[in-house]
């Protein structure tokens, strides 16, 4: 019959209309500033630098190798290497960045910096409320702004962080074992030398 399709459609929309008052589950939107949807596990916005321990600057995992700077497709990262080496989180002497800036107005959130980093030092953040009064200075984030603790990383990407932590722990254990072996190897050596001297 002609026109029944229209009536069917009208009934459907009427059901939606009434349903949206009676059934809160129907509403597909949330009232954003007051209500929030929990962030998705794999959400990513802009990169941040992970630090271990208490001091955000000394604990940075970044060793200023500048791989990310070179790989970044839109060239939004600026790194200036420090001239002196400092002990890194594994106790090794490493360079640290003196300057580490990311211009998030240029960043395209591609995550390539995260993929190329050999030190698990740069990760993607889920923070998205980044509007600023100043378009240029406000969106240029420096080292202080970028440094976020490993605890923060564990909170926003739990599964990924656990994997990274276990890998780093394994590496650290391996390094320690190696150091111990080296130390063990080094310890008898003087003895033998002594022996040879004798």
């Amino acid at each position, binding site marked *: 019959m002609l026109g029944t399709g229209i009536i069917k459609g009208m009934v459907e929309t009427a059901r939606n*209309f009434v349903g949206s008052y009676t059934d809160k589950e129907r509403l*597909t939107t949330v*009232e954003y500033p007051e209500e929030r949807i929990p962030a998705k596990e794999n959400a990513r916005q802009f990169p941040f630098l992970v630090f271990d321990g208490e001091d955000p600057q000394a604990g940075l995992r970044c060793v200023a190798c500048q791989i990310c700077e070179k790989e970044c497709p839109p060239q939004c990262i600026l790194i200036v290497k420090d001239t002196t080496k400092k002990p890194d989180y594994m106790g090794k002497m490493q360079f640290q960045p003196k300057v580490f800036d990311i211009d998030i107005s240029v960043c395209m959130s591609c995550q390539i910096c995260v993929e190329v980093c050999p030190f698990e030092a740069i990760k993607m953040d889920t923070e998205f409320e980044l509007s600023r009064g100043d378009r240029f200075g406000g969106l240029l984030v420096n080292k202080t702004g970028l440094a976020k603790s490993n605890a923060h990383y564990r909170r926003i990407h739990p599964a990924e962080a656990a994997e990274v932590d276990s890998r780093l722990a394994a590496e650290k254990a391996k390094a320690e074992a190696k150091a111990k072996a080296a130390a063990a190897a080094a310890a008898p050596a003087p003895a033998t030398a002594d022996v040879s001297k004798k």
Partner: protein
Amino acid sequence: MMDWIREFLGMLWKTVSDQPDPKAAFLPLIPEEWRSETSVLLSIAPLMMIFPALFALTTVVERKGLGRIQNRLGPNRVGPAGFLQFAADGLKTLTKEDIVPRAADQLVHFLAPLALVVPVFLTFSVLPFGRHLVPLDLESGLLFFFAIGAATELSVFMAGWASRNKYSLLGALRAVAQMVSYEIPLILSALTVVMATGTLSLPQIVDAQAAGNGEWLARWHVFTPWGFFGFALFLVAACAEANRAPFDLPEGESEIIAGYYLEYSGFKFALFFLGEYLGLFAACGLGITLFLGGWHAPLPILERWIPSYAWFFAKLAALIGLFIWVRGTLPRVRMDQLMNLAWKFMLPLALVNLLAVALWHFLPNPLARWAASSILLAGAYVGLGRALMPPSRIGKRVYRYAPQDSR
């Protein structure tokens, strides 16, 4: 001075309480030479206040209603439950820059919004809003309504042409073609009422729909077969005349951006918006007057307690709600579908409807009237619908290169 205030308040009270000739006591206080002007002003002022206010309210209600239809909340930030959204929108359009394209025809571009809003306001002047609330009781009120309404097409063309923009011009062409096409079913469906009542005066048409002595149900035209059909045709045609979804091709934001008012910004755009909604209200008001018994209550008993204009505005609100509902439901039609609907379906049906009302008029027996006009109209509807339904083209899929037997 005290007399003035007292009589003015008395006039307001008489209007609100539905008493005859509310201006009678106030006008003698005005000097003789200003009396007619004052009377005109007193009739116009409420129209100029109430309908724009209704427009403001409708924009909010429409957005909230559409939101609910799509399982959203709709605007709810400005004012209580978002009902002051129109104030924010109005202020925004008032303070926006008025941009006129350099290549535009400055004068015509400026005149176009006025040429829309002025006729639309004029159309309200003949509608009977209540028992004693007819701004202009013209003998040929219906003719006035359609004549003035036809002038709005001109403004659409002016806007589209003067903007010097291809999308504007396309929108104007679409709009004018659509308005010209749908004006015919609109007028033909209104003509049925003229045939049945024998008058073009809108207050007299309303009077013809009052319940007779001792009848418990009002004689609204929509309760007759031809009236029901005429009302349906009228609503569809009015929807197309007002360029509302599903007939909003002239705006067609997905293909021609905003149609004929693409190059309008700021308050001129707001005027177009206002004109479009006021045109819809006027068409609804005419539909109420012609088919829904005007300001009459469905049951005459109810008229004793509830003032007549309240019935008019309740029906108006219901019709606006219906239009919002339709807008939230139906997708936009295609241009050829639009023209086919007007010329191949609605026009023949409107002509058959004229025949039905003639039958109704000449058959004396109520049962025979009902049967004859119902059968005629239902037959025309079903037959035309069947004949125009495109043959189903869905069949077995044919491949061009693959062998036919392979799946």
